[in-house]
C-alpha cells in the first residue's frame, strides 16, 4: 500500500437547480480497503458516486486518482481510468449472453470486431473471481437470478481492470444468503488490492464489510474514521445530526374504534391472504423487507392492483376499483414519486387537484380561479416552497414534491391515508414535518397506514405495527411492544423458515 490515497475527493460541490446535493465533500480511500459511505436517503450518497463514475460533473472541487488529477468527462472515461460502478438497478443488457455483457463497452475487443475466442479466458477469469465458475459464458443474463446478475456486473468491472469499485446499496434486492456470498466476494476483491466504496444505510452490514466509514448528511461529509472506533449510536447521531426526540415530533392522538376491516386481501403474487383491522385515528405501521409485499398490500387496498378479499369500511363493503375506493375516502401516496406519485411536467395546482375536480365544476366547466385558490390554501397548509401554483412539479426538490403529493390526498379529503415510504429520499426537516402532519391527521380521526423500511421512524411514529414477510402480515402489535430486533426477526426469521 502506498502512503498516498488511491482516490481522493476534496471540496466537491454539486447543485441541481435549487437543490444543493453536495457541498464541500471530502473523501479518501486506499487500495485494498472498503470504505462505507453512510447517510440517510437524500444525503447525497448516490450523487457522490455518480460524480465519481462520471455520470455527473462536480461544480467545483478536486479529485485525484493514484496521485493524478481525475475529472472524468463521462462514464466511459471514468471506466477507462479504472472506476466501475455497480448500480442499485442493475445495468446489464438482459437479452445478451453473460460473456457479451462482461465485454460490453470494453476496450481491446479487436479493432471494432468482437473476438470472443481471444477474450474468453479473460471473461472466465473474471467470472471465477466472483464465484461464478459454474456459469456458462453463453448463458443469457436476463434468465439468471438478481444475485447472479449482480455478480456478472462485478465480473464486468473486474474484466476492465477496475481499481475502484463503487457499490450503491448492493444488498437492497438480495435475499439473505446471497448477501453473505456478496460480502465474501467483496473481501476477496479487497485482498486483490481493489478499493471499494460501499453505500448503505444498514449499519450491521457496514460493520461486517467495511474498514472505514464516511458519513454524509444533507450533502456534507460530517465525519469519517475507522469503523471499529465508533459505536452505532455515534454513527446515527452523525447521520441525523440531532437527537432522535426532535426527529419524530408526532402530534399526540388517541386511536378510536375499529374503522376499516380487511379480510383475506390477496393479490397476484402478493399479498397472500391477509386480514387486519384499522382503527379510526391511528397510525398503523407496516414493516418488512423490500419485496415482502408491503407495497402490494397498499395497492390492493386502494384498488390499483386486482385483488380478492373484502374491504369493509364502517361495515360497508367497497367495490374494488380506484374510483370507488377514493369515493369511500381512501387516498394513496405512491412510493415512486417520480413516475407514479406525481405528473412531473404538470403544475403544482394541477397535481394537487387532478384527482378531485368535481367541486369546481359547474355545467362541465372547471372554475380555474376557484381551483387555484383552493390549491394555494393547501400549499400553504403543507408548506410547499414554490413561487406559485403554476410552477411545474419537476422543478421542486424531493421534499416539496412529496408535500404536493400529500396535498393531493388532503384535497381528496381522504380519511384513510395509505402512505408508501412517504419519507423516502427527502431531507430530515421535511421528514419531521411529515411525521407531525401524520399525527395531526390521526388526531382529527383519520387513519394513516404508514409503510416504511426505516424502523426507527415506524417505532417512533406508529400506534401499532404489523410486520410483513413473504406476502402476508405476520404479526401485529402495539408499537411499544416491538423492538427493532423483534421486527427484523419477524421479517427475516419467517423468511428463512419457509
Amino acid at each position, binding site marked *: 500500500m502506498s502512503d498516498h490515497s488511491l482516490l481522493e475527493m476534496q471540496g466537491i460541490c454539486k447543485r441541481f*437547480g*435549487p*437543490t*444543493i446535493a453536495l457541498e464541500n465533500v471530502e473523501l479518501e480511500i486506499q487500495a485494498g480497503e472498503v470504505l462505507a459511505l453512510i447517510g440517510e436517503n437524500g444525503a447525497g450518497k448516490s450523487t457522490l458516486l455518480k460524480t465519481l463514475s462520471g455520470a455527473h460533473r462536480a461544480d467545483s472541487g478536486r479529485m485525484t486518482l493514484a496521485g493524478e488529477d481525475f475529472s472524468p468527462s463521462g462514464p466511459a472515461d471514468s471506466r477507462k481510468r479504472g472506476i466501475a460502478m455497480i448500480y442499485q438497478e442493475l445495468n446489464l443488457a438482459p437479452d445478451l449472453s453473460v460473456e457479451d455483457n462482461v465485454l460490453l463497452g470494453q476496450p481491446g475487443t479487436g479493432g471494432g470486431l468482437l473476438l470472443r475466442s481471444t477474450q474468453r479466458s479473460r471473461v472466465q477469469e473474471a467470472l471465477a473471481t466472483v464465484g461464478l465458475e459454474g456459469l456458462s459464458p453463453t448463458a443469457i443474463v436476463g434468465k439468471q437470478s438478481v444475485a447472479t446478475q449482480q455478480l456478472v456486473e462485478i465480473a464486468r468491472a473486474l474484466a476492465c481492470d477496475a481499481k475502484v469499485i463503487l457499490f450503491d446499496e448492493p444488498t437492497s434486492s438480495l435475499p439473505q444468503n446471497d448477501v453473505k456470498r456478496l460480502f465474501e466476494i467483496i473481501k476477496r476483491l479487497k485482498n486483490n488490492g481493489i478499493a471499494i466504496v460501499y453505500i448503505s444505510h444498514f449499519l450491521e452490514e457496514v460493520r461486517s464489510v467495511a474498514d472505514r466509514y464516511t458519513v454524509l448528511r444533507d450533502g456534507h461529509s460530517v465525519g469519517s474514521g475507522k469503523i471499529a472506533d465508533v459505536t452505532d449510536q455515534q454513527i446515527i447521531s452523525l447521520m441525523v445530526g440531532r437527537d432522535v426526540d426532535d426527529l419524530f415530533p408526532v402530534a399526540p392522538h388517541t386511536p378510536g374504534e375499529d374503522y376499516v376491516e380487511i379480510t383475506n386481501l390477496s393479490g397476484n403474487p402478493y399479498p397472500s391472504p391477509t386480514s387486519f383491522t384499522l382503527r379510526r385515528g391511528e397510525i398503523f405501521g407496516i414493516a418488512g423487507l423490500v419485496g415482502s409485499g408491503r407495497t402490494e398490500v397498499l395497492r390492493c387496498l386502494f384498488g*390499483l392492483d386486482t385483488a380478492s378479499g373484502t374491504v369493509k369500511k364502517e361495515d360497508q363493503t367497497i367495490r374494488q376499483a*380506484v*374510483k370507488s375506493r*377514493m369515493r369511500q375516502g381512501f387516498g*394513496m401516496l*405512491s412510493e*415512486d414519486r417520480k*413516475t*407514479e*406519485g*406525481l*405528473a*412531473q*411536467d*404538470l403544475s403544482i395546482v*394541477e397535481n394537487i387537484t*387532478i*384527482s378531485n*375536480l*368535481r367541486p369546481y*365544476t359547474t355545467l*362541465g*366547466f*372547471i372554475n*380555474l*380561479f376557484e381551483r*387555484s*385558490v383552493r390549491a394555494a390554501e393547501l400549499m400553504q397548509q403543507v408548506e410547499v*416552497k*414554490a*413561487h*406559485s401554483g*403554476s*410552477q*411545474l412539479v*419537476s*422543478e*421542486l*426538490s424531493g421534499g*416539496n414534491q412529496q408535500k404536493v403529493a400529500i396535498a*393531493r390526498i388532503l384535497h381528496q379529503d381522504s380519511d384513510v391515508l395509505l402512505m408508501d415510504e412517504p419519507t423516502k429520499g427527502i431531507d430530515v426537516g421535511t421528514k419531521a414535518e411529515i411525521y407531525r402532519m401524520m399525527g395531526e391527521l390521526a388526531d382529527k380521526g383519520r387513519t394513516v397506514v404508514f409503510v416504511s423500511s426505516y424502523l426507527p421512524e415506524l417505532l417512533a411514529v406508529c400506534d401499532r405495527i404489523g410486520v410483513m414477510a413473504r406476502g402476508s402480515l405476520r404479526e401485529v402489535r402495539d408499537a411499544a411492544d416491538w423492538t427493532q430486533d423483534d421486527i427484523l426477526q419477524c421479517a427475516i426469521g419467517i423468511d428463512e423458515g419457509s
Partner: protein
Amino acid sequence: MKNYSKTISLLFRSQLGAVLAFLVIALCFAVADYFYGSGNFVGFRNMRSISHSAALIAVPALGMTIIIIAGGIDLSAGTALTLCGTVFASMLKFSPVTNEASSFGGYILIALLVTLATGCICGLINGLLISTTKVVPFIVTLGTMTIFLGIGQIIAQESTVYAPPEHVPLWLQNLCYTGSNIEKYNLIRYVPTDAILAIFLAVSVGLLLKFTIFGRNVFALGSSELTARLCGINVFLTRVFVYTLAGLFVALGSLLYYANVKNGNPTDGQGMELDIIAAVVLGGGSLSGGRGSILGTMIGALIIVVIQNGCDLLQIPNTVTLIAIGCIIIIAVVVDQFRQKIEPSKAPDAAA
C-alpha cells in the same frame, strides 16, 4: 386578479415561440415576394387562400393534438380521413335525390352523419386496439393506416369517386371558396367558410382541454399514465374517448377535403398524417405526452401552409418546399427542447 394575469402570461409564454416563428417566416416571404415575386403574397386574396389551406390541416390536427397530449400518436389519420371522404363521396354519388328535391337536405344530413360516424368508428377501433392489446399506438395505427386505406379502396372500387354536381349541396360546393364572388361565401363575406369552421372547432377544443375534467385528465394521462391511475382516472375510457373524438375531427376534416377537391380518392390520404402531426409538433406538442396546445397547433398549421404558399408564389420548386418544411420541423423541436432545458434553471431558488 394577479392569478389571472399570471395564467395568461404563462399561456402566452408557452406559445410565444410558435407565434414568433410564424411571424418571422411570413415576414421573410413577404419581403422576398415583394422584391422577387409577383407581390401577391401580402393581399386579401392570398390570405383567404392561406386560411383556407390551413383549415384543411388544422381541423384533423385538433384531434391529433388531443391524442398527442394524451401521450399517443395516430398514423392512420390520413387514410382514415380519405376513407371518410370516400364514404361521403359515395353517399353523394348514389344519392337518390338531387338539388331540386325537397328531401335533399334530409339525405345530406344522413350522409354527413354516416361520414362522422365512420370517422368515430375509425378512432374507436384505434382506441380499443391500443387499450386492450397494450401495443404501442405507433404500431397499432401503422396497422390501421393500411387497413383504412384498403377499406377505402374497396368502397371506391380502386378508383376515384365523383359525385355529379347536382348531388352536391351548394353550401358544400362553396365551403372552401376563396374567390371574389360575394354570393359564394356561406357565413361571412370574404372569409372562407372552412376557416371559420376551423376557428370555431379550435375554440371548442381549447375550452374542452382547459376547462373540463376530461381535458385535464387527458393532460394527466399523457404526463404519466401511472399517476393518472393513482388519481382514479379511468385510463381505459379516457384513452378510447380521446381516439374516438380525434376520429370525429378526422371526419370533419374529410368534409373540408371533399369540398376542396370535389371527389373521393382513398389514396390521397397517404402521407397526409405527417402534415397533421407536424402541425401539432410545430405548435409545441410533445410526442412524449402531457404537452401541446390548440393555439400552437393552429399556428403550426399556418406555418406549414405559409411555407407551401410562399414557395409557390416565388416559384420555388416543390422539392425545395418539402426540404424547407422538414428543416423547420426539426429546428422547431430542437429549439423547444433547448427552451425546456434552460427553463428550470432560470427559475429563482425555490428552496431559499
